[in-house]
């Protein structure tokens, strides 16, 4: 349920945001508010994680998994991007 509310609010925000395209002060304030809500949420996430013994005791395993997942995501995107670049973006030598 939470996820649908979040997506709906997100979509509403995009539509409403279009009204503020010319309002630079409003846009700046919104960006500041975004930054601070991210800080707040990460702070709260820190608290919940800190009070969760299971995560604290397994922190090195979690870091290890995170590292390898990053490796997978980066390799996957870069290799596929290489293929797409060669097929669709690379300037054709015959045309130059």
């Amino acid at each position, binding site marked *: 349920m939470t996820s649908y509310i979040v997506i709906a609010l997100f979509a509403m925000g995009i*539509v409403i945001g279009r009204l503020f395209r010319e309002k630079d002060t409003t846009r700046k304030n919104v960006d500041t508010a975004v930054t601070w809500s991210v800080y707040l949420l990460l702070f709260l996430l820190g608290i919940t994680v800190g009070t969760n013994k299971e995560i604290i005791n397994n922190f090195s395993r979690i870091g290890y998994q995170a*590292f390898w997942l990053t490796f997978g995501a980066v390799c996957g*995107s870069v290799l596929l991007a290489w293929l797409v670049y060669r097929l669709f973006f690379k300037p054709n030598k015959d045309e130059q």
Partner: protein
Amino acid sequence: MKGSLIILAFFAVGLAGGIFNVFPEWLLNEDLSTYALFVLMFLVGISIGSDKNAFYVLRKLNFKVVLVPMTVVLGSLSGTAIISALLSNINVLEAMAVGAGFGYYSLSSIFISQMYSQELGVIALLSNIFREIITLLAVPILVKYFGKLAGIATGGATAMDTTLPVIVKFTGKDYGIIAIFSGIVLTILVPVIVTLIIELM
């Protein structure tokens, strides 16, 4: 880079305080972060919707540019899915949910910890921060060996802001607009794809 350090600092302060139990009971209420998430997502929406660049960029692009964010989505999801086979304690969908952060660590970690598990949320936080750091450090090498889309691809959602300067520097200004486009599309897709994957679990 500075931004991610500040965010990590907030996380670390919360973490330390949580471990030593210094916070009052009301701060531990789960509903608090749910409401904060509602506010955040609404604000992120407004921020994207009010971005003049976002729609201006769209008009200047031709169709094949859509391939770039699609490449990042497919590459990140398949790469993390393959790696998950080598990792114990993490299944394919969990790995893909982490990969679907596309470098947008704040949003993806908050989402995953709210809707699935805190442990996977922390993995998403670290993994997507690593992704941004790797991009900042490795773009010159990646672009040299894997073509001009490589930096935009590792950058993922961050290609529109934090990693844009490095990408433009090593790929050229003409690719700057593709980087911004790809970053915007991926930023919008992060909550959508993460939610879809969590719904499958």
